[in-house]
């Protein structure tokens, strides 16, 4: 590590922001991927990877991705729930990687739910 200046302290803090928003809970949006056996069989892993890639590529630091179990509607998997803090969570169904790109752009970043893919507003707790 080179000698640090006072500006470097801020730069390091910025660089670690994504990781610390996970730990400290200072995130703006949470995406829950439903990863029950049904979800995994329907392709939830690639849906999740697609979402992670979108987040990494856009270098967004205040969105977290988490997983939960079967939501009970196995026929409509893969599903995700997008929750912007202080707004109603929206559940999306029958997803694929292309839809994820759209949902990321419109809802996660833009704040507007993508109605055509949405199933319902609301979510079970994740534990």
């Amino acid at each position, binding site marked *: *590590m*080179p*000698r*640090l*200046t*006072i500006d470097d*302290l801020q730069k*390091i*803090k910025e*660089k*670690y*922001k*994504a*990781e*610390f928003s*996970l*730990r*400290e*809970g200072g*995130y703006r949006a*949470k995406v*829950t*991927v*439903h*990863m*029950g*056996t049904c979800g*995994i069989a329907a392709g939830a892993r690639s849906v*999740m990877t697609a979402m*992670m890639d979108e*987040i*990494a590529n856009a270098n967004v630091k205040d969105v*977290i*991705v*988490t*997983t*939960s*179990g079967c939501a009970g509607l196995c026929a409509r998997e893969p599903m995700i729930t997008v929750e912007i803090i202080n707004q109603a969570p929206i559940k999306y169904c029958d997803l694929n990687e292309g839809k994820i790109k759209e949902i990321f752009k419109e809802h996660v970043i833009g704040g507007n739910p993508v109605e055509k893919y949405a199933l319902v507003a609301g979510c079970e707790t*994740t*534990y």
Partner: protein
Amino acid sequence: MERFRANVMLCAGTGCVASGTMKVKAALQDELKKRGLENEIKIVLTGCNGYCAKGPVMSVYPDDIFYQALTVEEIPKLVEEHFLKGRPCQKLMFKEPEEKSPVPLMKDIPFFKYQVLRVLRNKGLIDPEKIEEYIARDGYQAAAKALTQMTSQEIIQVMKNSGIRGRGGAGFPTGMKWEFCSKVPSDVKYMLCNGDEGDPGAFMDRSVMEADPHAVIEGMIIGAKAIGAHNGYLYVRAEYPLAVKRLQLAIGQCYEAGLLGKNIFDSGFDFDLEIYQGAGAFVCGEETALMRSIEGKRGMPRPRPPFPAHKGLWNKPSVLNNVETLAQVPLIILNGADWYKSRRMHH
């Protein structure tokens, strides 16, 4: 920088290491790899989380799920259920005695719920062996402020106004101690830290040194500037090998980053710091005995006066502060005396 969707903060304090953290870590790593999750879930070894009785413990973020009494045998199921399928493992959660249902979230567990963390602000939240993680939690901002924007008198005034008293137990006002020493003219002075926590069953200083070594070092840098010292020793008992190891690593990182040594933050201020390991004598926690011990003599207390502020280590003006006191100094400098005062107990 890699992006993970979860951070597993596995406690690697002395207590949890003794009850098997390293084996659990290896099992976790293997299992995550087997499931292809190694680029999604990150394992971070932290300092003492505080719940040693049920070690090894870990908390999972962003979920904030707390697991206790982990065993290697449970890991495959835990990884599959929680990290793959998103179903936290109830069996490993905290349970109140006499209660059937577990308490999944760390913030709901009574032991943690009422804790307001200040001196232990980074425990369990950072990897104590990585300076970047300390910096990410505002580390070294206070040292930067003290070295580049404040005079020695200003630092001392903030410390006096804050009302902080020595956390080692004697409760002497820290600001006053620094002021005495700052007023003694001398080319050579010493800033010292007492990490010789000798009282049986007392581990608060060890927790700080293991979980957040940089906080102690930052406090010493600020203290050194206040009293005008350019050399310091961290006196740590040899019975704390993990604390010694992490402090040693932290000191090395500071030298590399220019936070110790010459011209810190281009302020013109120099400070050199090294560790001196105590050899297991209870009495060396007493300040005059501690200084004799660093001098290589038998650790015997001597009568005061003269006080160490005038004649301390090698008869030079010296200040000795407790680990916990020093770890609070950065907070006081950053947040101000009134902030600290509003939170202290009234004497």
